[in-house]
């Protein structure tokens, strides 16, 4: 919910409401647009070759109809929504699609795209391992190398060290600016609502990186100047979980009497919390995407092989960044949200809940099927959770 808009927030809202607007214009000027699913195809490589990365989301408001012909119904409704929109021609502005084996359904989606979505000349599935051991990082680096060769062939140019370095600088700049954006929600009351924050992030995933950075600079300058602030509320929440690309959930929580001040989601902090380390080479990208991005699709408990003896240490090594965020943002409760059938996040929930218990931070687990309709069913639970904290 926007409270008082400024130039940056206004533009973010416009793009949020019509995500492909800018890339369609750019495409008319001869630019090539590469759609990507989840956070794992390195956007630096796409940008470096003069291509425009565009993060693909589903649409919660559009019923899934066409996907049922090619997909089973008991899998991630977010990814089913994407293939549904693809089949219906809603992504006809993309010149290519890239994905990774983030999860089985995520990998299947790219293969389905190749088979059922017409007019996308470039499709690439990156085979990404599920552990972060040294041999896994090395393997992933080889996979990034083959992604590079495929992209070069499509773009008709070579990816030089200089181009990659420049792209890394631009994307790292974006990460730094997003962290400044999150700093705006450290005060009480926060200077930005969670829905405004989401609209800005969704806009970033829809724009070339340099335009996204200018948008962020406008937003940061504008928000600091605005007179009207979000209201102070007793409860400050963190939202955790897989992709959530719609303001509906944040509005629902804020209407229930809480401010969402930080998140650990993949349309939120996960993409922006760590920079790609210098020198920006494939090794640094492999390290960044496989190790530094914290998503349960990578088994980070593998170091201790999940043994009971090391359970507490294991929890701490997996979740201490959440503890830090809870402290830094003054969080007093966590909403663990997940899309239905997400096994990667589902298996993380009992451990994370236990970890939150040890911190004395209450949590609530809510599951939705990536539809506006499912928001209504979780409303009472979120309200009751806020009441127990208030």
């Amino acid at each position, binding site marked *: 919910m926007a409270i008082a808009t400024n130039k940056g927030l206004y533009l973010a809202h416009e793009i949020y409401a019509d995500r492909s607007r800018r890339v369609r214009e750019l495409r008319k000027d001869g630019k090539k647009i590469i759609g990507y699913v989840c956070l794992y195809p390195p956007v630096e490589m796409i940008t470096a070759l003069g291509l425009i990365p565009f993060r693909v989301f589903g649409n919660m408001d559009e019923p899934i109809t066409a996907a049922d012909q090619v997909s089973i119904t008991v899998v991630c409704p977010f990814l089913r929504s994407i293939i549904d929109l693809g089949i219906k021609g809603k992504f006809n502005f993309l010149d290519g699609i890239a994905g990774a084996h983030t999860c089985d359904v995520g990998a299947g989606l790219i293969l389905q795209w190749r088979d059922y979505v017409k007019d996308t000349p470039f499709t690439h599935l990156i085979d990404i391992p599920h552990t972060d051991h040294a041999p896994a990082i090395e393997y992933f680096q080889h996979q990034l190398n083959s992604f590079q060769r495929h992209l070069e062939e499509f773009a008709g140019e070579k990816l030089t060290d200089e181009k990659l370095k420049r792209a890394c600088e631009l994307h790292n700049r974006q990460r730094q600016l997003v962290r400044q954006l999150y700093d705006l929600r450290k005060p009480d009351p926060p200077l930005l609502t969670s829905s405004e924050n989401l609209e800005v992030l969704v806009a970033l995933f829809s724009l070339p990186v340099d335009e996204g950075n200018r948008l962020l600079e406008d937003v940061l300058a504008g928000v600091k100047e605005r007179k009207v602030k979000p209201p102070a509320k007793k409860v400050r929440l963190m939202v955790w979980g897989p992709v959530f690309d719609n303001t509906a959930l944040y509005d629902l929580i804020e209407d229930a009497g809480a401010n969402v001040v930080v998140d650990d989601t993949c349309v939120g902090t996960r993409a922006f919390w760590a920079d790609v380390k210098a020198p920006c080479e494939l090794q640094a990208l492999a390290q960044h995407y496989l190790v530094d991005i914290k998503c349960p699709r990578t088994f980070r408990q593998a170091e201790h092989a999940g043994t009971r003896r090391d359970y507490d240490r294991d929890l701490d090594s997996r979740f201490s960044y959440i503890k830090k965020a809870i402290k830094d943002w003054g969080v007093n409760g966590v909403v663990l949200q997940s899309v239905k059938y997400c096994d990667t996040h589902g298996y993380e929930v009992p451990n994370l809940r236990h970890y939150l218990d040890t911190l004395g931070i209450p949590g609530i687990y809510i599951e939705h099927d990536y539809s506006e309709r499912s928001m209504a069913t979780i409303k009472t639970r979120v309200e*009751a959770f806020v009441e127990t904290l208030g």
Partner: protein
Amino acid sequence: MDTPAPKLFFAGLDIGSTMSKAAIIDAEGSICGYVVGPTGAEHRHRANRVMEDVLAKSGLSLDEIAYIISTGYGRVNVPFADKQVTELTCHARGVAALFPDVRTAIDIGGQDAKALKIKNGKLIDFLTNDKCAAGTGRFLEVTAETLGLELNEMGRVSLQSARPVRINSQCTIFAQQEIIARLSEGEPLPDILAGVYIAIATRVAKLARQLKIEPPVVFTGGVAKNSGMVRAMETVLGVPVLIPPEPLITGCLGAAILARDEALKLISRGEFRTQKKQLSEAHIEFTEKAA
């Protein structure tokens, strides 16, 4: 002051998916009156009606009610409520008022089932089974229709069972097919009914176990009025369950108590506004007494 200050009253309305409930209490927390009736399709209309009924039953007028809290699915459709609170918080408060030591509460309504963990009278954790008829009162209603029985008759008949049949389906529709299959196999009716109760209790107990069941356990909601269901719940949980004298009104009673607490808080901050001078005087007296 020559004229005695008027007493203060507080109301709670629980507009559930199937039944609407209302209670009025006084400053001491004693129940002045309560009503229970079907909700129907017209939530707003129903809220007015249930309020009029409870006022009539308590011999009071709307002007005498200092604060009103609405709860339940239809809580947004109570235009005269001062505040809305979820049924989870209200049930916990109502149950704790009747059973101060309660640690676990299970509520089965017409369309949902909930398990509540309560500590020192306050809701600390909960789980709900939402938007699925399995394990709710609706499941029993459909079963009664299938068997051509009255709801209250069903409980009595089930108590004659010595060997409940297993109903495996979690889905209301499939379970009805299973019931028909058992009937055609010649299983006795009491055993089938007892099996249905065990199936519902098992599903709801699963919710409660996730929160770790700690006695005393209180069982509320319309379904708790069913003797067969109570026995099944005790069998499945392995602990005795306590049933309030009127298991339908814990939600609205909790809402009324929260209304009293809220009014008290506002009065003590000097933020309680009322057009009636007499009432203001009463508020002051009430505050002094409370302090």
